[in-house]
């Protein structure tokens, strides 16, 4: 398993380079929006990657609640942290694109609001983990993750109705996408997924190591206290 890590790292670096080349040079310039549209190759793959990671977090949290496996908890933590980073990329690149194209930085559109609420829920998840240092943290965090997942359909319906009452924002409707653009988009998504796996993996290993160190230190101080008596 450990040998796969550098291989994945090299693969990710290659894919990211190729993805950058594709996004900046290979993909044709969009007719109406111009070069600013190229942010799309980072924005959309980041969003898909973030949603995948939040899904991994949910599954790991459920596994933790059922099996009480500390490894599932470490995976949930790693996925949530990396997911929040990718979600932040989405929320930052979105307005940069929206300002020249829509003329506004932000609108309370369905997808925008849903992404923002998900980001808020997962930031509160990380805050809970940060502020709670007891042995109950993993269990509370897992419960919060499941409740957060229950919240998502409710957020979806509330924003959907909220927005159908009001004028729709200008979104570049359905339409077809140039196959070259789609190719670059999917290539970038693959690269981002590899990167996310890589970062999650190292974060996961770090978390496991950190816990082992903590356990060893606690054991050592117990032994020292026992021998000095």
């Amino acid at each position: 398993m450990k040998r796969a890590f550098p291989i994945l790292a090299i693969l990710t670096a290659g894919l990211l380079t190729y993805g950058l080349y594709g996004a900046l040079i290979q993909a044709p310039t969009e007719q109406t929006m111009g070069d600013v549209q190229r942010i799309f190759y980072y924005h959309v793959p980041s969003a898909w990657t973030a949603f995948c990671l939040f899904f991994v977090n949910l599954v790991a949290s459920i596994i933790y609640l059922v099996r009480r496996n500390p490894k599932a908890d470490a995976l949930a933590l790693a996925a949530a942290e990396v997911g929040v980073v990718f979600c932040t990329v989405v929320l930052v690149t979105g307005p940069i694109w929206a300002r020249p194209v829509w003329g506004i930085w932000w609108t309370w559109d369905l997808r925008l609001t849903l992404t923002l609420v998900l980001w808020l829920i997962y930031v509160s998840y990380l805050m809970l983990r940060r502020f709670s240092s007891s042995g109950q943290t993993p269990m509370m965090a897992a419960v919060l993750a499941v409740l957060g997942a229950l919240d998502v359909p409710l957020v979806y319906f509330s924003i959907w109705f909220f927005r159908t009452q009001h004028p729709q924002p200008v979104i570049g409707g359905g339409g077809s996408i140039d196959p070259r653009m789609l190719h670059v988009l999917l290539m970038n998504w693959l690269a981002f997924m590899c990167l996310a796996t890589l970062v999650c993996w190292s974060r996961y290993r770090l978390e496991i190591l950190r816990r082992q160190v903590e356990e060893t230190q606690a054991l050592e101080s117990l032994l020292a206290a026992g021998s000095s008596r």
Partner: protein
Amino acid sequence: MSSPPGVTRATLVKDLRLEWRSKDAINSMLFFALLVVVIFSFSFDPTAEESRRIAGGLVWVAFLFAAVVALNQTWARELRNQVLDAYRVSPAPASSLFLAKVLGNFIFVSVLQALMTPLFVVFYNLRAIGPAYQLLFVAVLGAWALVVNGTFFAAMSVRTRSREIMLPLLLFPITIPALLAMVEATSSILTGEFSAKFWIVLLAVYDVVFTTGCLLFFEIVLHGE
């Protein structure tokens, strides 16, 4: 006594008696909400037409913040004299304890709503153009949504290092759909422009989903393993 309804009733009566004697939660909530009303009122100084549109948001933000003040005390009160540990070792089902706490907080928030609504009407010159009786459903379902999640997350935040700060950080993101529903329903009824039915149904669904979820998970949160 040890039956689930008995545990619920005993805990509820104990909490209400404690509150009746000290009046800690209700006083701090009321004064806090009053401050919010006054500050909003003179910082916006709205006309009757404007206030009808923004009142839904103001009312619920005031209730939300005031409820947090009371919710924080729900479990913090049980930390003294290790009452919470006593609950943990007792054979009483955790869900009936949770239900008692939710009912107690629901009563506090309802009293708050009953006392604060006249003040809102006075300060903002409110008069509902839509069907006013629907406001009652919104008030009950909205208070329940705040209280059910709030009591649950207060039990979590009491375990963390900075207790009082942690509750709103956990509660607000999850409550966003319920809060949107309360605010939009209240505004729709006050302005009479839209039907509030969808929002009331959404609020009811939210209440059912989260009451079930919280009752199921409370055992895990209380015992912590």
